[in-house]
């Protein structure tokens, strides 16, 4: 390997510190897409509760949820770059949101649950379900700008 002078080393270090591939639009897309999926999961939990006992409305809710999810994923896939840490932050947010969603389903529709939990408790819980993905979306967007 050729020797390298301190000046050349500094030039390479300068290049390393100034090179950044990600762009604002891709970061926004990744952050917003992540947040949108969180809102969709929280929203579908609330919608399932609202349409309880109405199979047609339930099915339509699920179909709308699937469309929003597929749209958000497709939209995110159009990005040309994926911000640093995006995949890991997304995964953490997604698993936390899904864990809260499953607990919410068990709370409202589990065996022996014949009545809906009070909305004063359940509505904030649905917002809580979306929170990990909202936080992940925020971190992905702002992390990419650093």
């Amino acid at each position, binding site marked *: *390997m050729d*020797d*390298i*002078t*301190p000046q050349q*080393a*500094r030039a*390479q*270090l300068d*290049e*390393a510190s100034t*090179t*950044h*591939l*990600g762009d604002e639009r891709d970061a926004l897309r990744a952050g917003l897409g992540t947040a949108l999926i969180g809102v969709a999961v929280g929203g579908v939990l609330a919608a399932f509760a609202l349409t309880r006992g109405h199979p047609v409305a339930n099915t339509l809710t699920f179909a709308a949820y699937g469309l929003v999810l597929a749209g958000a994923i497709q939209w995110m*896939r*159009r990005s*040309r*770059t*994926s*911000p*640093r*840490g*995006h*995949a890991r932050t997304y995964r953490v947010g997604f698993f936390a949101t899904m864990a809260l969603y499953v607990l919410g389903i068990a709370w409202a529709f589990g065996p022996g649950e014949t009545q809906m939990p009070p909305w004063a408790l359940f509505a904030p819980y649905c917002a809580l379900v979306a929170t990990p993905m909202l936080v992940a979306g925020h971190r992905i967007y702002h992390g990419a700008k650093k």
Partner: protein
Amino acid sequence: MTSDQSHARHRLDEVIHAPVRFSIVAALASVDQAEFAVVRDAVEVSDSVLSKQVSTLEAAGYVKVRKGYVGKRPRTWLSLTKAGRAAYERHLAALREIAADPPLD
């Protein structure tokens, strides 16, 4: 180990040291993954040059190449592997040591 071999230049990664490959790795280090065309434009090389250098990095286990489609359009995605990121960090550490060396009289 002799004192010569302890010099930071011996810790430079031979695969990453080449200028174009260094630029590719530096660019990929700033993202999780990027499209082939984005890297090509950032590094300012032709498709064939990037392809050749990426093959070398892939053979070293530093870069992962993933092919897929967005709609009907074929896309190639490049990302640094864990080993690639670690090698790049070691390379940068060696560069920092060399850069800090006082000039020889």
